[in-house]
C-alpha cells in the first residue's frame, strides 16, 4: 500500500501525526564515558539541560510522537508510545509572489493536550526516583524543564490514512517538515500550542548574514595613502585576497603577514564603473571582510547563501533541480556583487528573486525549490468541475494590482558601497515597455515596476534586457487568481507546480469553459473532524483572456523532429516555428498550444 493508492479509496480513515525531535544523550549515567556521580534518584534525564557531565554529553536524536487517534505501530524500542493527544493542526501555507520576493513563508500551529505520564521511554532511571511520575507533574511541564533548548528542532506533520484493517502503515503517509519556533503552555486547560516554521526561517536576518559581522579592527589611525597597516582579528576572519571595507572605502588585501595587511587602497572589482577615494580611517574602526560573488550563476549563489550563510543542510537544497531551472533559459544569468556589509540572507535571496526567479520551501518535498517565471509544460491536470473540484469551493478574482506594462531595471551599481535605492548610484536602466498593453485598445495606461539590481554590472546589458522582457511578458496582463479545493485524491500538485484546470467560472468569449494553465501559488491542507481537503490558490500563467501568452524556447538542434512528433519536454524547451498543419489543414499550432518567443 502507498499513500497514492490509499488516498483515492472511498471510506479512507484520515490520521495526523506530529513528530518532534529533541537532542538527547546516548550515555548511561555514571557509566562508560559519563563521569556523573550523583546519588541514586538524582540522575539526569539524558538531556543537555539536566546533564551532570556536559563535557561528555553524547548527542543523539530522540523523537516524540503524537497522533489524532490512538495509533499503534510507530513506536520503536527506546521510544515513548505515540500519545493520542493531538487536538488539531492548522497551516499557514507558503504563498508565492513570482519574481517579487519571498512571499509568505509556511507555518504550522499544533494544539496538544497535556497528560500525566509514567516517564517510560524518557527516564532511564525512574526505578531510582523517589516519586511516582504518574502522580507528580505532567508530560509537557516536565518536557519544558528537560528540553528547554527546543527551538529550531525538526518537527514533522504526517498526514495519511489507516489501512483497510484500521492499522498504521508508514507508506500511507506523507510528511511535511518544519522547524520548531515556539512552545506555549501548558495553559490552565492543559493545552499546549507548538508553532513550527519552514526552513527558510534560518535565512532571517537575526540568524544569518552574508558576510558575517567582522570583529577585526584597526590598531592605529591610517592615512589615505597607507598601504600597509596592522589589525586585531580575534576570529581570523580576514584573509589574503579578500576585499575589506573600512568606513566607506573598500580595499583589496594583497598580502597578510601576521596581523599586518598590505592592501590596494580604494579597490573594488573591475565590474564597478564608479570611483572610490581612499580616506583616512581611525584606530578602532571595524575592518569588515566582504564577500565577492564573481560572475556566478543564480543556483550557485543561492546554494552559498542558504548552505554556508544560513546553515541549511545540503539535503534540503536540490542543486540538480536548480540546475535544470538554470538550463532552461537562465544560462546567461551570471551575477556579480561585492557584499560589503553584513546583509540578511533573506534580503539577498529576495533580491535574486526579483530577477524573474522564484524561491520557496516545499514542506512536503522537504526541499527549497527554485524556478523561473518562464513558461513550461504543466505538471498536473487537467482538472475540472466534474471530477476534481469540490463543490462550492471555487472563486475567481482578477489580480489587477500585480499587472505592469513597463519594467525599469536599474543595474550597473557604481560602487559596492553605494546606497541601492538611489537612482544616481546606477550607471544604467533597462526599460522595457509593452506599448500594446498600454494602448487605448487595451489597458490605456502604463504601470511601472522598478527593480534596483546590485547583481548586474553595466556589462550585463543583455541579461538586464532578458530579465526586463520576461517580467513584462509575464505580468503584462491581469491574471486570474482562482481558489478551489481538491479531495486528497487530487493533492499531487503542490506549491509552485503548474496545472491545467477548467471551471465554469472562467469562460471564453463564447461562454465555453476552456482549459487554462495556472501556477499554484499556495496550498493549504485542511484536516478537521475527519475531513481532509486541500485549498489551492493558483494564478493563471496568462491573462484573463485567451491567446495572450507566449512560451519561451531556445533554438532547436538540427536533430529535432516536427512539432507533433516531439516530446512534451522538447516542446517545453525548444522553440518551434508554426507548423503547417495544426490538425484542420490550416497553418499554426493546435488549439491551446501557444506560439513561441525565441530566447
Amino acid at each position, binding site marked *: 500500500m502507498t499513500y497514492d493508492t490509499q488516498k483515492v479509496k472511498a471510506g479512507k480513515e484520515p490520521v495526523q501525526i506530529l513528530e518532534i525531535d529533541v537532542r538527547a544523550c546516548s550515555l548511561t549515567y555514571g557509566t562508560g564515558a559519563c563521569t556523573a556521580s550523583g546519588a541514586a534518584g538524582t540522575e539526569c534525564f539524558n538531556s543537555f539541560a539536566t546533564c551532570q557531565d556536559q563535557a561528555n554529553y553524547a548527542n543523539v536524536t530522540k523523537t516524540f510522537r503524537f497522533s489524532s487517534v490512538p495509533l499503534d505501530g510507530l513506536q520503536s524500542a527506546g521510544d515513548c508510545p505515540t500519545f493520542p493527544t493531538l487536538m488539531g493542526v492548522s497551516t499557514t501555507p507558503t504563498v508565492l509572489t513570482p519574481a517579487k520576493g519571498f512571499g509568505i513563508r509556511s507555518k504550522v500551529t499544533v494544539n496538544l493536550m497535556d497528560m500525566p505520564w509514567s516517564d517510560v521511554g524518557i527516564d532511564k532511571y525512574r526505578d531510582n526516583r523517589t516519586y511516582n511520575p504518574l502522580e507528580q507533574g505532567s508530560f509537557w511541564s516536565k518536557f519544558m524543564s528537560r528540553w528547554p533548548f527546543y527551538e529550531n528542532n525538526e518537527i514533522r506533520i504526517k498526514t495519511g490514512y489507516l489501512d483497510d484493517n484500521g492499522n498504521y502503515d508508514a507508506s500511507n503517509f506523507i510528511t511535511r517538515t518544519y522547524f520548531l519556533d515556539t512552545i506555549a503552555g501548558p495553559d490552565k486547560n492543559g493545552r499546549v500550542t507548538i508553532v513550527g516554521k519552514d526552513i527558510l526561517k534560518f535565512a532571517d536576518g537575526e540568524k544569518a548574514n552574508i558576510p558575517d559581522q567582522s570583529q577585526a579592527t584597526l590598531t592605529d589611525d591610517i592615512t589615505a595613502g597607507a598601504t600597509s597597516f596592522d589589525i586585531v582579528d580575534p576570529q581570523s576572519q580576514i584573509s589574503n585576497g579578500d576585499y575589506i571595507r573600512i568606513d566607506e572605502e573598500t580595499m583589496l588585501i594583497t598580502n597578510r603577514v601576521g596581523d599586518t595587511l598590505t592592501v590596494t587602497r580604494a579597490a573594488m572589482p573591475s565590474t564597478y564603473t564608479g570611483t572610490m577615494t581612499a580616506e583616512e580611517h581611525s584606530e578602532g574602526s571595524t575592518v569588515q571582510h566582504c564577500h565577492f560573488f564573481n560572475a556566478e550563476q543564480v543556483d550557485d549563489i543561492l546554494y552559498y547563501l542558504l548552505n554556508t550563510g544560513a546553515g541549511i543542510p545540503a539535503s534540503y537544497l536540490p542543486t540538480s533541480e536548480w540546475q535544470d531551472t538554470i538550463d532552461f533559459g537562465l544560462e546567461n544569468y551570471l551575477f556579480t556583487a561585492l557584499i560589503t556589509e553584513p546583509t540578511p540572507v533573506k534580503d539577498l535571496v529576495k533580491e535574486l528573486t526579483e530577477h524573474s526567479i522564484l524561491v520557496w520551501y516545499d514542506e512536503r518535498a522537504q526541499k527549497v525549490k527554485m524556478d523561473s517565471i518562464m513558461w513550461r509544460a504543466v505538471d498536473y491536470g487537467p482538472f475540472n468541475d466534474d471530477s476534481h473540484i469540490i463543490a462550492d469551493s471555487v472563486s475567481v478574482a482578477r489580480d489587477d494590482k500585480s499587472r505592469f506594462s513597463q519594467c525599469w531595471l536599474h543595474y550597473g551599481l557604481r560602487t559596492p558601497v553605494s546606497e541601492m535605492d538611489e537612482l544616481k548610484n546606477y550607471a544604467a536602466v533597462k526599460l522595457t515597455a509593452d506599448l500594446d498593453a498600454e494602448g487605448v485598445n487595451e489597458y490605456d495606461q502604463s504601470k511601472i515596476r522598478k527593480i534596483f539590481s546590485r547583481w548586474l554590472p553595466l556589462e550585463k546589458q543583455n541579461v538586464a534586457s532578458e530579465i526586463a522582457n520576461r517580467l513584462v511578458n509575464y505580468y503584462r496582463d491581469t491574471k486570474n487568481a482562482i481558489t478551489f479545493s481538491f*479531495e486528497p485524491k487530487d493533492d499531487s500538485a503542490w506549491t509552485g507546480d503548474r496545472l491545467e484546470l477548467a471551471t465554469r467560472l472562467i469562460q471564453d468569449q463564447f461562454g465555453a469553459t476552456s482549459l487554462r494553465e495556472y501556477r499554484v501559488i499556495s496550498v493549504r491542507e485542511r484536516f478537521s473532524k475527519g475531513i481532509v*481537503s486541500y485549498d489551492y490558490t493558483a494564478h493563471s500563467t496568462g491573462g484573463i483572456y485567451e491567446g495572450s501568452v507566449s512560451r519561451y524556447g531556445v533554438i532547436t538542434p538540427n536533430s529535432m523532429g516536427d512539432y507533433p512528433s516531439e516530446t512534451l519536454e522538447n516542446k517545453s524547451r525548444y522553440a518551434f516555428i508554426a507548423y503547417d498543419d495544426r490538425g484542420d489543414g490550416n497553418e499554426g499550432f493546435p488549439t491551446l498550444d501557444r506560439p513561441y518567443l525565441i530566447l
Partner: protein
Amino acid sequence: MANQSKLIFENNLVEGPSSVSYSGTEISGFEKENAYDYLDFSTFKPQVSATTNLDFTMGSSQTVQALGIFAKKVGGSGLDINVFYESSPSTFTSLGSFTNLDGALSILDITDTTSVSGRRFRIQFVSDSTQYEIRQLFLGPLISLERGQYVGVNPPTLTQGKILNNSISVNGALIGSTVKREKVITRIEQEFNTQSWIRGTWESFTSRAASGKGFFYQWNPTDYPDEVVYCMAQKVDAPENISPTPLMRAGLTAICRQPDE
C-alpha cells in the same frame, strides 16, 4: 435483578504493592509500567518464547477477585497467563489460568484472595515466539452494581459509530469520502440505590474514575459476559436523593475503548 453490570476499578497492582519486579527481559519503552498506568495506548511487551513472572509484593488486606486484561491484538495464539498468590513464603498457589489472550479485553474470575503484607501476587506470562503486547492489567475486587440498568443503556460493545464525509464535485459527482470514528460513549446509570452502597462502593468507584483512572466495565454479565470495555470517565454526576427516600440515584458518563479489531 438481571443486567447488574460489573466493574473492576480498584487496581491492586497499582494501589497495593510496595514493589514490582519482572523476571524477564524488558524492552525499553515497552516496560512493565505500561501494563498498569491506566493508559490504553502504552503497551508492555512480555519476553517472547519464555515463561516470565510479574511479581507484586503487596501490603496487607488487598482483595482480588478478578483479572482485567486488555491486550493488543497482534495475531498470535500463544499467550497464556497464570495468576498466583504467595500463600506462604516462596510458595505460590494458583488463582486462575487463562489461555490464548491475544487481543483479549476481558474480565476473568479468579479465586477470591486477600493479601498478607509482604506476600506476592504473581502474573505469569507464558509466551510463544510472537511478540505480544499488554495494554492494561487490573487485579482487584469485582464489583457488581447494586441495581440492574434500565432500558436506554447503550451496549458499548456494539458497532462503533462512524461519520462518513462525502465530497461532491461542483457538478455533483461523488469524488471521495472519509470516515471518522465516533467516540464510544456509555452511561452507567443507577437508581433506587441504598445510601450505604452509594457511600461504600459507588463513591469509591467515582473518586478513582474522577481522577483519571480507567476501569473495566462488563455491561451485561448475565447475557453477554464476553462484552467488556475499558473505560475512562468523562463526566461524573453527583449522587442525589430520590423518592422514595432514603434511596439515591447516581450516574457516570464514560468513554470506552473496545477490543482491537
